[in-house]
């Protein structure tokens, strides 16, 4: 039984001739306890995919089965409850509420579950302990370092014991030491049996993953299994075979991934984005959902 099953899921934004195709008939099957890294250039639909899986958004077309249950047509309230009980979100910008202490932030999902105050504090305390923020629990987010803030956010995501953790570039705002800390934490969570999806631009981080999904222009173009501890083969190619960024790129902050993505016909598609979308839609997709 697959945990997550997406079938021909599309997401369109806008209408008329301003319609943007954010997801183009994506099919993806995710089993319990996978640790999936999603890679791809900016604007390729990674975040949209995460939002759809996390039930923050509805697909325009296609079916989404979560634990054998069709969830895309459910009412708002029910989706919120599923989100609360089965999905934990981790964001690039942490998204802690600035006027609340770490403790209150971590306990926030429990508030909406209707847990009593005493129990809330107890559970939040235990979770904060687990992510190693024991001495920081009465701090406000502005007093935390990036890594600590992300740890607090992870604690918040874990507090309801969700089976799916969705992390949209969790290390995007962190230095490499903090990144490692956060990834180790996620790795720990994975060992406890949770399913984790995370978006990253850093090929190094695919070491933690069991599977890597590459996206381009709203479609999954490549999907591969990888062993924990190794950089995924395709990601490795990006790292070492493709010429790295020039000095100008460094100055402008352009990353390797922004320039080169495997499977994408590079130059033309970037010059004429409107046409390239049509091309991408017509292009036969290599990716297939699941491990079959």
């Amino acid at each position, binding site marked *: 039984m697959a945990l997550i099953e997406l079938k021909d899921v599309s997401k369109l934004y806008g209408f008329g001739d301003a319609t943007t195709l954010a997801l183009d008939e994506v099919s993806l099957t995710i089993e319990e306890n996978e640790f999936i890294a999603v890679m791809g250039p900016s604007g390729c639909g990674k975040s949209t995919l995460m939002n759809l899986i996390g039930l*923050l958004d509805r697909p325009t077309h296609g079916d989404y089965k979560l634990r054998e249950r069709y969830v895309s047509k459910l009412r708002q309230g029910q989706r919120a409850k599923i989100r609360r009980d089965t999905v934990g979100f981790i964001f690039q910008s942490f998204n802690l*509420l600035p006027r609340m202490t770490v403790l209150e932030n971590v306990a926030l999902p429990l508030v909406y579950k209707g847990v009593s105050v005493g129990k*809330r504090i107890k559970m939040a305390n235990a979770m904060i302990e687990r992510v190693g923020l024991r001495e920081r629990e009465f701090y406000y987010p502005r007093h935390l370092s990036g890594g600590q803030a992300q740890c607090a956010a992870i604690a918040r995501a874990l507090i309801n014991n969700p089976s799916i953790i969705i992390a949209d570039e969790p290390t995007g705002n962190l230095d490499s030491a903090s990144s490692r800390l956060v990834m180790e934490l996620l790795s720990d969570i994975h060992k406890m049996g949770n399913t984790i999806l995370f978006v990253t631009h850093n090929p190094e981080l695919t070491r933690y993953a069991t599977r890597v999904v590459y996206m381009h222009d709203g479609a999954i173009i490549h999907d591969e299994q990888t062993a924990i501890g190794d950089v995924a083969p395709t990601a490795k190619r990006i790292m070492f075979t493709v010429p790295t960024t020039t000095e100008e790129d460094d100055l402008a902050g352009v990353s390797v991934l922004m320039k080169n993505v495997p499977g994408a016909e590079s130059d033309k598609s970037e010059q004429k984005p409107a046409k390239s979308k049509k091309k991408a839609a017509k292009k036969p997709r290599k990716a297939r959902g699941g491990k079959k």
Partner: protein
Amino acid sequence: MSSIARGNIKMALSSVRGTKWRSMLTMLGVIIGIVSVVMVVGIGEGVKQEIAHQVGQFGKDLITVRPGKLKSNDGQMVSNTDLLFGLNSISGLTQKDLQTIQNSDHVRLAAPLAVVPGEVKAGNRKLDQSLVIATNGSLPEAINRSIPYGDFFSDKDEDANVAVIGRHVAQTLFDDYVPLGQTFTFRGYTFIVRGMFDDFKTTPLSPSSNFNDAIFIPTKVAQKITGNSTQMYTILVKPDKQENTGAAIESIESKMLKAHGGQEDFSVLDQKQNLEASSGVLSLVTTMIAAIAAISLLVGGVGIMNIMLASVTERTHEIGVRKAVGATNRQILNQFVLESAVLSVLGGVIGVIISIVGVLLLRVYTNLKPVISWEAIVVATGASLIIGVVFGAAPAIKAARKDPIEALRHD
């Protein structure tokens, strides 16, 4: 649910604290509204109580005969609006009516009250607001008063140009404490001051309020001055025994009805009805002013709505985060409704406190004796709660309907 509510109240309070200035200004509308309503009602209530007190002073057995119909046929007081018009169309009672009343059963005495217009002068002093009332020798007994200085005129000297004055008149006209034997001129006649009343407890809007400023002269003299055109606005009657009050009223009513040819253009009221009549008008006026004051409460509500809308826009990102961690639309709605309710009720409570202080100041510095009842406080707080919920609903619905992704993207 209760724990959610508690958490939300805490959050709402912290949000109010976080934006002190803005919250304060928002609450100002509600505060002003509550203060004006509570104060107006308080002053009205105070005056009513004073009147009741004063009515008690005159004795429970006092019967008041007034022109105009103030009672409906089944004995109930007519509605407030009719009462206002009834008071406007006063035609006055006549000397004949007085005699009819005096001849009724169980009537011990009857004292008429009629205003005689004119200017009062004593030497080079003048009374600005002279109130000359024509009456007879029964007045002191009718209003349970004795004359501490001098004498009231008796029925024997009804033709004499004598007068009994109120306390203030002594001060303003004669600049004397006890100006017995002094004289003043009124419409060309010279009067001698024969007696003086002690202080009447003053209350605004009550019938006896200006007895302190009044000069009482005998009816016959007044008729001589005006050429029989004085009209009595009230005749005060005392029954022979207190338990005969009802019988006296019935007798007066039937005799008067006969004398007026079956037309009931007068009212015979006991003290209770009299009280109802005056407090009825007062209630009407109070209600009207309070209603106008309530409009400011409404404006306060609009202010709350305005600020809540701004707050929702400002906290879009927070709403997104809350939704992402599993808040349902309903829970977001509750949070914002509760927040505006907290804001509004806080304003209401502050308003009530200011009202209490205001009432105390009024009691100290004016002769008004406003009262704040528990009902007023409860109603004011309840009203502010309702305003908070009603005017907080629209912004809260807006917050609840926000798309979580859009909200998360918002800074």
